[in-house]
């Protein structure tokens, strides 16, 4: 019998029995990884759920963060009903359903011969053990979701492993698709990208539900490692069903003269938390962090970012734009940290919110923590409403409210989309954003 003093279970659906069953269902794992998973599960059990006093969860709705009512699927599902959301040419593709490889399009032979690897993490754990061990979930969570990060590590089944050797450029994007199938399915997608010195690669990731009406639980993570002089372009498209609870924890390391551009598009889920960490570790490193969100109905998007400048002459540029409709809510909390010897840091952080209704809510918490004295750091947040004259102008051309919102959202997003070098990718993102207005 529940009593008033009963405390919420700290494990929810992810009980020790379920964890044991999860481990039993995996193929043989290297001992170090098995140990890490066990340690992660213990951390998950021990850590509390976010509390009211947690500054890293300020403004977040915590009452709807639940671990109950989900299950870890023991198998994938048929891929027949999966929609193909991104019609662009790719150099390789991995499709995961419920954390298991469902299908793949392999790399062209010449790229394989030059040492490029696009494989599953399960294979890479054995065949490229040193690389995986060095980079997989190597950065401790710093943005508040330690409990969920631990859950991800404990229940991670499979994911994508991408390695580009020194000096190799992969021209076409590599696609990673993660689907959740079956009501209540809990999934833990992971993508690990290692770009060796002076290499270049684009990775496009898509998260979706096989059936739009099913509720899922997703805790995804990625690790992007850009070695000296390399370039990674990462585009993540979160399109889970509208009843999904989603967490995505991204970590980026940028080395000397390397450049990482990430663009995260947030469309799906009823409540989605996104944490993004960029560490600029050597001179000349540049991280461009972009995000676009279309929030509608009662959706909540909670974005937390951290740009850490650990070396002199490093640059970061963050631009997060949210378009809000109906009763939607967004939270942006960003921090720029400049270490004492990271002189000549050039850091920028901007959160812009476009309010398309009177009932939506945008919260913004930009922050700076500078310990060096010769830096240029700019941050700011703006929230704007549609000018009624602008609205009337659109209406007077016969454009109704829904279409006007769509048009103004694209106008608002245009400068971010224009930062993508690939026109094809730009067009594919537009198409995907459009689906949000026709649903």
């Amino acid at each position: 019998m529940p009593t008033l003093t009963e405390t919420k279970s700290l494990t929810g659906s992810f009980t020790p029995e379920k964890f044991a069953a999860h481990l039993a269902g995996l193929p043989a794992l290297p001992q170090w990884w098995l140990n890490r998973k066990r340690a992660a599960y213990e951390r998950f059990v021990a850590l509390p759920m976010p509390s009211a006093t947690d500054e890293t969860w300020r403004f977040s709705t915590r009452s709807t963060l639940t671990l109950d009512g989900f299950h870890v699927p023991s198998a994938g599902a048929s891929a027949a009903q999966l929609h193909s959301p991104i019609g662009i040419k790719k150099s390789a593709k991995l499709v995961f359903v419920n954390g298991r490889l469902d299908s793949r399009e392999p790399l062209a032979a010449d790229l394989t011969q030059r040492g490029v690897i696009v494989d599953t993490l399960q294979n890479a754990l054995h065949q490229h053990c040193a690389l995986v061990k060095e980079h997989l979930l190597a950065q401790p969570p710093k943005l508040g979701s330690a409990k969920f990060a631990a859950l991800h590590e404990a229940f991670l089944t499979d994911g994508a492993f991408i390695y580009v050797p020194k000096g190799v450029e992969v021209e076409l994007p590599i696609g990673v698709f993660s689907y959740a199938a079956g009501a209540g399915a809990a999934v833990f997608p992971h993508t690990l990208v290692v770009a060796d010195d002076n290499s270049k690669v684009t990775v496009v990731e898509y998260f979706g539900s096989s059936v739009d009406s099913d509720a899922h639980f997703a805790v995804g993570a990625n690790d992007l490692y850009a070695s000296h002089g390399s370039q990674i372009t990462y585009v993540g498209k979160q399109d889970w069903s509208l009843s999904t609870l989603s967490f995505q924890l991204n970590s980026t390391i940028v080395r000397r003269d390397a450049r990482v551009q990430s663009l995260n598009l947030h469309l799906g889920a009823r409540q989605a938390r996104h944490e993004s960490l960029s560490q600029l570790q050597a001179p000349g490193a540049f991280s461009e962090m972009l995000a676009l969100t279309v929030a509608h109905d009662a959706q909540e998007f909670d974005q937390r970012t951290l740009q850490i400048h650990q070396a002199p002459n490093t640059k970061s540029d963050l631009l997060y734009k949210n378009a809000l409709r109906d009763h939607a809510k967004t939270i942006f909390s960003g921090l720029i940290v400049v270490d004492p010897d990271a002189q000549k840091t050039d850091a920028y952080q901007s959160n812009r919110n476009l309010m398309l209704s009177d009932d939506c809510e945008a919260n913004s918490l930009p922050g700076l923590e500078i310990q060096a004295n010769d830096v240029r750091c700019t941050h700011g947040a703006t929230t704007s409403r549609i000018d009624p004259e602008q609205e009337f102008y659109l209406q007077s051309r016969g454009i109704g409210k829904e279409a006007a919102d769509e048009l103004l959202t694209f106008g608002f997003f245009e400068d971010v989309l224009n930062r993508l070098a690939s026109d094809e990718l730009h067009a594919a993102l537009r198409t995907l954003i459009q689906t949000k207005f026709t649903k």
Partner: protein
Amino acid sequence: MSLLEIKNLHVAIGEKEIVKGLSLAIRSGEVHAIMGPNGTGKSTLSKAIAGHPDYTITSGDVLLDGKSILALEADERARAGLFLAFQYPSEIPGVSIANFLRAAQQARMAEGEELDASAYYKRLYSKMDLLKIDRKFTSRSVNDGFSGGEKKRCEILQMAMLEPKFALMDETDSGLDIDALRIVADGVNTMRGPNLGVLLITHYQRLLDYIIPDHVHVMYDGRLVKSGDKSLALELEAKGYDWVKKELAIV
């Protein structure tokens, strides 16, 4: 053949009555000009007909082909065939003219019907050629950083693409030098024809040197006080608005 009827229209902004019983009928093919001093309610009339939410129609009616449009939202009125050319068009950063017009065209199609993109661009380019507008123009954001002349040209292009039954042109000549004025007037004259009715609202006679109206009306204190042909505009130019005021005082 269409008919736009304004019947004893009263319009208020807040508590203040601006248009005080104005009646006018415009048929397809006709160009009517309304002239009047500042503050007499000319712009209020055009915005109220187009459905601006700040303007309250307190009595009277506006009929398009016999049907009242007053219950329609502004976008519905536009789709029914009305077009308002703005005195001060809004800027819409990030939205190209091509995409803007495409959305306006798409809005006129039935649910589930998709605009044929290649046919749309073909039509857009032919209209631009007709109006002597450079092709690069449509990739610019709507009115964003435009000069006064460019803004008005953008309005004319939209009007050409949307092919309204009736165009309400609010002080289209304001802020234009003589070259820009000529370009805008050429555009309107190009579109003039049996399927278009035009209501030109202007303070000055000079626009009417380029767009010759069929009917000229003088508006004063929220009403039309005098109507005539194009010679009325010239008379007004020669004698000034005080002449109308004096005449009214006598009456």
